[in-house]
């Protein structure tokens, strides 16, 4: 696949992946371009049909660097700092507008360790199978499975706390 076709086919999904991996909104485009810069330099090495896996692997590395650099520059949000959405509608679920839900999702993901976050994002949001994740992360499938289990447990806990806080704030049971 030639560079432009690769870029046009995969840019949106790489952008979305980087965002969910914790790259700040203002930096996502730069980070996505870094991913494709690496791809440009290694285009002949990318096996046909494996472009997505290759790009995901590079995106994980780029995101990891970005997040590490950013975490040195500014403190990550803690769960206590998760924005409280004030809305008088009856339930927490119904309060969530799309954008607000994404903001909460990003806060919840920010609270996960990066290795768990990556597996959760790749599986739940990008729809990759454990086998594919294991290949991209160069880890055994069992490790990927274990990370997914822990990621889901932690994400569930965080989501429960968020939901409770939303409902408390909204005066809903």
């Amino acid at each position, binding site marked *: 696949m030639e560079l432009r076709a690769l870029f046009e086919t995969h840019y949106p999904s790489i952008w979305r992946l980087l965002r969910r991996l914790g790259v700040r909104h203002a930096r996502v485009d730069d980070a996505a*371009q870094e991913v494709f810069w690496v791809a440009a330099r290694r285009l002949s090495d990318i096996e046909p049909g494996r472009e997505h896996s290759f790009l995901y692997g590079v995106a994980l590395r780029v995101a990891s660097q970005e997040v590490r650099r950013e975490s040195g520059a500014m403190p990550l949000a803690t769960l206590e700092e998760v924005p409280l959405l004030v809305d008088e509608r009856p339930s927490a679920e119904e309060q969530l507008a799309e954008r607000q839900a994404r903001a909460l999702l990003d806060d919840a993901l920010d609270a996960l360790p990066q290795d768990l976050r990556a597996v959760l994002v790749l599986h739940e949001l990008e729809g990759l199978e454990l086998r594919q994740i294991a290949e991209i992360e160069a880890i055994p499938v069992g490790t990927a499975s274990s990370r997914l289990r822990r990621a889901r447990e932690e994400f569930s806990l965080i989501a429960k706390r968020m939901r409770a806080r939303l409902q408390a704030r909204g005066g809903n049971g």
Partner: protein
Amino acid sequence: MSSEPGWPEETMFERRLLASARGDRPPHDVTGAWTRFTVRLGLVLPAPGADLGGAPAHFAAIGARASRRAAVKWLLLGAFGGGGVTAGVMVERRAPALERPAAQPPEPAAAQAGEAAPPATMEERPPSKAAHRATAHRPTRAGVRAHRAVEPSRLAAEVSRIDIARTASTNGDFDGAIRLIERYHDDFPEGALAPDADVVALEAAVGKHDRGEVSRRARSFLARYPNDPHAARVRWLAEHPLGR
């Protein structure tokens, strides 16, 4: 094979959070992103007053500084890169419509973009001390040229450092190439191009005819990056440590 673990107790709320990500899209269209990408590669100049789709202004500044001479340097860089992909060739071939005519001088655009350029960003910082150390060991004029041709962003610095090492190896300075790669790893412990760097060091070890080092480096590479696109070549080199 491990079976997929289930959710402990997935709620509607969690599903709603996760589903919200599916509608997330880049704020700009792909064509605009591609234009910014080619500008960033330094092969295409932004048209005067061009709307880069909200691109950070430093892209415009970088693009404006990039003359066709810079593009040629990129191509040279690719040529020195040996097996590396010459992105510039692809871009140049694929995106002629995005280019300004060659006869059009870059200076007005540079001035224009310069006015709009923000304070120095990460992409425009002076090279780090590490980068200076690397250039202090630059082995060839080509390496110097390559280093200067690329903007000193972190990734560009990585590219430059690896290309300098590769150039050293190409010129027969195998020990120098390996030293440069070791310095690269010191300065970029989580480098995005770490596998590429390791392949350069491995090939330098092949150039030295050092079977032990080739074997050690190949094993280390395959342990860390078993699915890397370079893995097949590294396996071959492990079996043919003299490169034949």
